[in-house]
């Protein structure tokens, strides 16, 4: 079942980016992927990242949490050092905003991303707010 789902997912992702790469097909809506703020090369090849970013993240998460290995290269935190979208107030937008980097593609592909149920979706995390217990 898992393999089948993975195959389906890989197929879907390939389809999405196949459509995307044929930019000439102007009548096909494509996700408007925000530019990375540093505008350099990603931690791996862009094509590799498009297909495998989730694998890198889940591998890193287990290494970090379970073993205490805190290399930054493939960490979720590191994604946001470059892939951050700023709103009108020049503050990074959270995942609640459809312009958020992750949401641009995930909304388009209808793949739900669960990371931000627990993780912060902006660099640096939230400021200290709210009522103390």
């Amino acid at each position, binding site marked *: 079942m898992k393999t089948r789902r993975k195959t389906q997912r890989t197929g879907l992702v390939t389809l999405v980016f196949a459509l995307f790469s044929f930019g000439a097909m102007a009548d096909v809506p494509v996700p408007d992927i925000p530019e990375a703020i540093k505008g350099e090369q990603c931690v791996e090849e862009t094509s590799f990242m498009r297909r495998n970013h989730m694998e890198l993240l889940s591998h890193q998460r287990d290494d970090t*949490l379970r*073993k*205490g290995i805190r290399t930054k290269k493939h960490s979720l935190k590191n994604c946001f050092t470059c892939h951050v979208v700023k709103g009108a107030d020049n503050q990074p937008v959270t995942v609640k905003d459809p312009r958020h980097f992750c949401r641009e593609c995930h909304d388009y592909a209808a793949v739900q991303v669960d990371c931000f149920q627990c993780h*912060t979706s902006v660099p640096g995390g*939230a400021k200290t*707010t*709210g*009522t*103390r*217990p």
Partner: protein
Amino acid sequence: MNNEQQTQDNKIDNYRRKLLGGSAALAGAAALGPGVFFTSIARAKPDAEPASSEVRWGFLIDTNKCVNNCDKCVTACNDEFNLTGFGRPETDAQWIRTVTLRDKKTGHTTKLPLMCQHCAHPPCVDVCPTGASFKRPDGIVLVDKHTCIGCRYCMIACPYKARSFVHETIDNQKEYGPRGKGTVESCTLCVHRVDKGEIPACAEACPEKAILFGNMNDANSDIAQRMASTASTEIRGDLRLDLGVRYQGI
């Protein structure tokens, strides 16, 4: 503990307080500003290096130094992880709390901070059906929220009531402290700080330096030396869980 022993402990404590007062003045020279100190433990772990089982992180808490009406350790913890309340003290997240013990016979009260005791044999890990509760090689007990199903068996198993369940959707997490609805959480021994070579937020915030953090396995560390020279005890030591948090003066 009888009175004679208590007096003896207090004497030692006064001596230590003077000694610590002296070293605090020395540390004052390295202060960055009022109330801000650059504190670090001996060695920061390199990022790529996994946590080592040769290390056993822990606290030694001197309850004689714990001042009434002070809750700076609790506030510091709440600030560190943005633990916000919903006006329901029964179920609001609480990673550290202060407990007051009263000797019925003498009326003597002792106050102490209580958090996850980071057991070497943690009951929460024993009962967890998914393997979400786990102990790092360096003795820090954590919840892997990626696999936590929110069953709360660990909360029932914990003899110290150290764990909380997140009942509400949360959107004010810190970068280093993911928290989410439907999962159990507790004191992480500020693992994000410890891995950088810093000390946990509660220990840093304590104005009386009542919470001593360090590597219990390193005979040269402050904590190991104080444990060797002064009496300390575990809460519910009869359970033989080999705790990472020890107390003096109770």
